[in-house]
């Protein structure tokens, strides 16, 4: 499977998770970057980066940003800045949720990466709900 197809599968995993887990919020506005009909709504730019998935409620109670990373692009400089920007943005929300979808082999690395970014940037980890989707089991913590 090509890198881009694999990335799409990881994004699909986030969409499925958001739809299943937040159904109780009588459905959020869910925007994603999957190939769809021409002119479909894409997620907005968040602090300079466009996430793979962006879900929000209005009036604002919950904001979810989802990002899919293959093993190859998880630890790049771009990913560090991108994930840092998303976490900083979510920290200021009433309820911010960051969903990181990675291959199962990279789940631990993903979790460590997020923790390390939070520490470096001084982000209060209790203010962002973190969900790691690895296709095997979901790890979530507050």
């Amino acid at each position, binding site marked *: 499977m090509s890198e881009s197809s694999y990335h799409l599968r990881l994004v699909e995993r986030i969409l499925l998770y958001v739809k299943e887990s937040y159904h109780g919020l*009588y*459905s*959020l*506005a*869910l*925007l994603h970057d999957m190939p769809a*009909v021409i*002119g479909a*709504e894409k997620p*907005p*730019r*968040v*602090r*300079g*980066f466009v996430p793979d998935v962006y879900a*929000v409620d*209005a*009036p*604002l109670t919950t904001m979810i940003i989802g990002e899919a990373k293959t093993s190859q692009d998880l630890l790049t400089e771009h990913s560090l*800045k991108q994930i840092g*920007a998303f976490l900083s943005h979510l920290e*200021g929300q009433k309820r911010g949720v960051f969903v990181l979808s990675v291959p199962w082999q990279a789940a631990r690395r993903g979790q460590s990466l997020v923790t390390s970014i939070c520490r470096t940037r001084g982000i209060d980890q209790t203010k962002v709900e973190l969900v790691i989707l690895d296709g095997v089991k979901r790890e979530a913590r507050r």
Partner: protein
Amino acid sequence: MASAASNVASLRFVPVEDIHLDVSNPRIRKFLEHYPDEPTPEQVFLALGAAGDDGDDSSTSFEKLKNSILTNGGIIQPIIVSRQKDGRLVCIEGNTRLALYKNFLRENVKGDWALIPALLYEDMDEARIDAIRLQVHLVGTRPWDPYSKAKYLYRLRTQELLPFSEIVDYCGGRQKEVVELIQAYADMEEYYRPIIPDDGTFDTTRFSGFVELQKPGLKKAVAEAGFTLTNFAEWIYGEKLYPLNMVRWLPRILRNPKARDIFLKDGARAAVQVLEKPDLSNALLEANVSQLAQAITQAIYAMPWPEAEKIRQEPGGQTAQCLNEALIALTALINPSTTGQ
């Protein structure tokens, strides 16, 4: 002058296959002129999709209407049909709706698409047809003001508990716009209403200031400068932010200590005067919009990647702000309907 008979219509459910699409419809005529022979229903359908019909001039409105009809299970407003002297039924108004019904029927889309509600006129003359087209397309219905629209959307969302996708399907628009309007309404009610002395002075025309507040970076800029959204509401109420599109300048004003002081004392219009003005050469000042647009396109294409990345990563930065302001102005110039101006 229209005959008396043509002024009386009856409301019927008419078989869609019996009604002919109006190929002389002014909006699609320009597309159909490319076909030497009588256009087929498919060609008319394509032309309607390209031109839009019941709404703004874009294929997006065609999609919106299609989704709205599918969600509702039919149309709410009947189409207008004229029965001509030879018995032929021609759609005078509502060609897109009729074309969609025909398409749904042909494609076996789930639902009842064989009959369409129609106001049926007998042998309408040209003057009457023109009068209807003018009233529908040039005068149109009176749109709701943005505050009332947002209030209604808020109710659908918070009381009727409709999902976003359903609201968008019913009323058209985009999810982001719906979210923005609902949030703007919620902010206005939460922060603006409490500071108004009495309900009599609650000015709904200030609503667009709260819509502007939803744009990226605005709330962050207010918070980072040590203010609250109640302060923002006070600025709107006290006309510190007037005209309301001055809200767009707020991040730059609040970041500049001198401009911020002037703003708090005399308002945004005075504050922008002290913001750094670009030192424009005569060549730039004398260039017209077309030349400037070409120059900016070339400059962007020639921009090194790190520089572009820097702009993206600093949405509150000077360059990003200037680009956003230019983008808003350009969009308003080219497509005013999307900016509400």
